[in-house]
């Protein structure tokens, strides 16, 4: 809904904008407000083990975070010639399902595991990433300015993860079925990087529209309590967005 409003606002600005004289030099800076999409798909596994019936039960939850809406708010300031600095904050939130598989020991016999599988839905993934960039402002002619940037990113990742898998079974226990999965949210921070380009088109004095393409990346060990190995998830990805520019 917010994205729709932004798009409508941008369209209104475009429709009502009055052409102005082209500037021969890049603007001093800009504030950008963008809405778009994070196109990357992230998947990672969460292996867990537990002791059941005198043996080790193994479970694996595979999370797949599909593309989804992303928002970005940024400021770029030219400080010396075409070089400047920028600060941006991007957010990404998505609820997806995860598939759970398990190998559960038989209560009567060693080395006779039963397999289970199932899905658990509504696992929320949220990223709030802060980017500090060095920027190069490149006049592209007319009212268009491009800013190429790169720099470190502080990722703050929140992921709802499976903590316990329950299953159902009954005599003669030769099969078992996935029941439910208990979940909890884990939050981790990690430093990574980002790079991208922002293209601004000035529509009127102090106002324009722009497009942003940013690729950010890091790997975060979510540190799930019951996990038997690293639960490492990529964070960030390729975001493409567009929106309003306040130019100064």
């Amino acid at each position, binding site marked *: 809904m917010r994205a729709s409003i932004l798009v409508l606002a941008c369209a209104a600005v475009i429709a009502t904008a009055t052409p102005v004289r082209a500037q021969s030099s890049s603007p001093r800076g800009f504030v950008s407000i963008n809405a778009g999409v994070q196109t990357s798909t992230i998947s990672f596994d969460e292996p867990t083990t537990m002791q059941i019936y*005198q043996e080790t039960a193994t479970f694996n939850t595979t999370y797949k975070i599909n593309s989804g809406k992303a928002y970005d708010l940024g400021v770029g300031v030219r400080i010396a010639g075409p070089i400047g600095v920028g600060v941006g904050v991007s957010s990404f939130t998505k609820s997806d399902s995860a598939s759970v598989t398990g190998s559960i020991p038989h*209560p*009567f016999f060693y080395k006779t595991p039963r397999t289970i599988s199932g899905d658990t839905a509504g696992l929320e993934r949220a990223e709030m990433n802060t980017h500090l960039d060095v920027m190069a402002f490149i006049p592209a002619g007319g009212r268009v300015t491009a800013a190429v940037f790169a720099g470190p990113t502080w990722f703050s990742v929140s992921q709802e993860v499976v903590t316990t898998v329950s299953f159902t079974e009954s*005599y003669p*226990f030769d099969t078992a079925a996935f029941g439910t999965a208990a979940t909890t949210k884990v939050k981790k921070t990690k430093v990574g990087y980002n790079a991208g380009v922002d293209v601004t088109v000035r529509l009127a004095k102090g106002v324009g529209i722009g497009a942003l393409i940013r690729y950010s990346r890091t790997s975060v060990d979510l540190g799930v309590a019951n996990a038997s190995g690293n639960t490492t998830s990529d964070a960030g990805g390729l975001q493409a967005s567009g929106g309003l520019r306040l130019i100064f």
Partner: protein
Amino acid sequence: MRLRPIGALLLAILIPLLLAEQRPVHGQGRVVTLTPDTAGAILDADNTVARMLRADELRIRTRRTDTLVAGRSLEWLSQYYQGVRVWGGEITRQVDTAGTAISVFGTVYAGITIEPDPAVTQDEAKAIIEHEGGAELHDSRSPELVVLPMDDGTFRLTWVAEVMSQFGKERIFIDAKTRQVALRYSTLETQVANAWVGHAVGVLNDDKKISTIFSSGTYFAADSLRPPVIQTYDMRADLTKAIQALNGFKVLTVSDIATDTDNDWTDVAVVDAHVYSSYTYDYYYKRFGRRGLNNADKAITNLVHLVRRSDLQTSSSSVVSTFFLNAAYVGDGIMFYGEGLPSNFFLSATNQSVNYFSGALDVVAHELTHGVTDYSSSLIYQGESGALNEAFSDIMGTSVEFFFQPAGTGLMKADYLIGEDVFTPRTGSISGIRSMADPAAFGDPDHYSKRYTGTADNGGVHTNSGIPNQAFYLAIEGGTNRTSGIRVTGVGGANRDQIEKIFYRGFVQLMPSNATFSVARATTLKAAQDLYGLNTASYNAVRDAWTAVGVN
């Protein structure tokens, strides 16, 4: 079709004659065996059954839904004479949903003319049986008045009860007129939520899981994961207490159940009795859909350590033979397992060491199968029916082995030897106590012509079992019977389940209590026909196997 009215007419004439003839001669009568194999003959036999039911000469003992063939029900009917049960007079009948008889097998006795009023009271008979058996009987095990058919064709009105003593378990018939013992024979069916899963080590030092119950800081050998109550009691060498319990005087309590402090069980006799009896329940459930001994989750009770190995040399020979060197189903879902011999002792006859009897899966399954037989065909533990009783326990014991263990030779391998995991040779000689593949290896007959006809061992129940055992083996594995030279094409090990189901159905669902080998052939062939059809590979294998062992 044209024969049916004629057959019915003949039976209508003959059966009443058979049932009524020879009245005056000291209650002497005749045996009428029913094994009809055509639709017309089955209908005629069924009409006879219906007439006897109306006349209260037959009563339905048990009726169950067939778990192997949909739409069928199975009935066991007992013969009665003027309100008194006739021992061994029994018919099994399977009927379809329309009530039409599909098969009728059994034996009834004709010409019973004795006076049914006893001169000896039940209490007097109980006292006599207690005296003869050497142990007291609880009131719940008081004698039953029955008409006993004798070998000479006469009948006697008798009181019968089973009594368990340190000398074994006997069924004793007391003449209800004269107080004399009319018949006695051993019925020791022998071989020579707080659920927790623990780790256990068995008799052969093998790791396994054990289902237990945890309460008050202690783990008990009581399985709560399976439908029936399965408990294993440690008698702690208190033989007197064990015998009292077996006779219904002493109720075993929770304090008698074997326990462990950390659920890591090391009492190997307890472990294997508990685990292998559970496996046997699993086998019957998975293979046949049967729920335990009585198909209604009858409790399974295992007793171990009735004696102590270190007491071997101070124990009487009867105690040694019964409680050191045997295992038994003693009725009411109760088994006990012999203690075996100390490691430096060997059987002189076979040069074999003897381990805890619960350590062999086929032995445990054999004993529980006696319980299945008790609650189904009730094969009389004497003569050919007794040999069939023994054979069926061997057959199922071996089948359970093949279900849970890999085929092969040696310890904990599925084979056609009985008790090979308990009776192991010191040097050279063969393991086990019987062989289904080669009964002669243990001196047992592999052909009807070689059957034992003496009176020992209840008429050779452990000897003549070799004949149906060999038939079962040949039906699966194929081969040539050594005596007849007849070659059988077996169904192969991959299809062993077919033969197992045929024998299960034939023995458990279609067989009367007094079956002969010939009746066993008929019931198993009928079972093969029911399950797989006429002239199929499994039908032919069973037919040819019985022929090869001389049973027609």
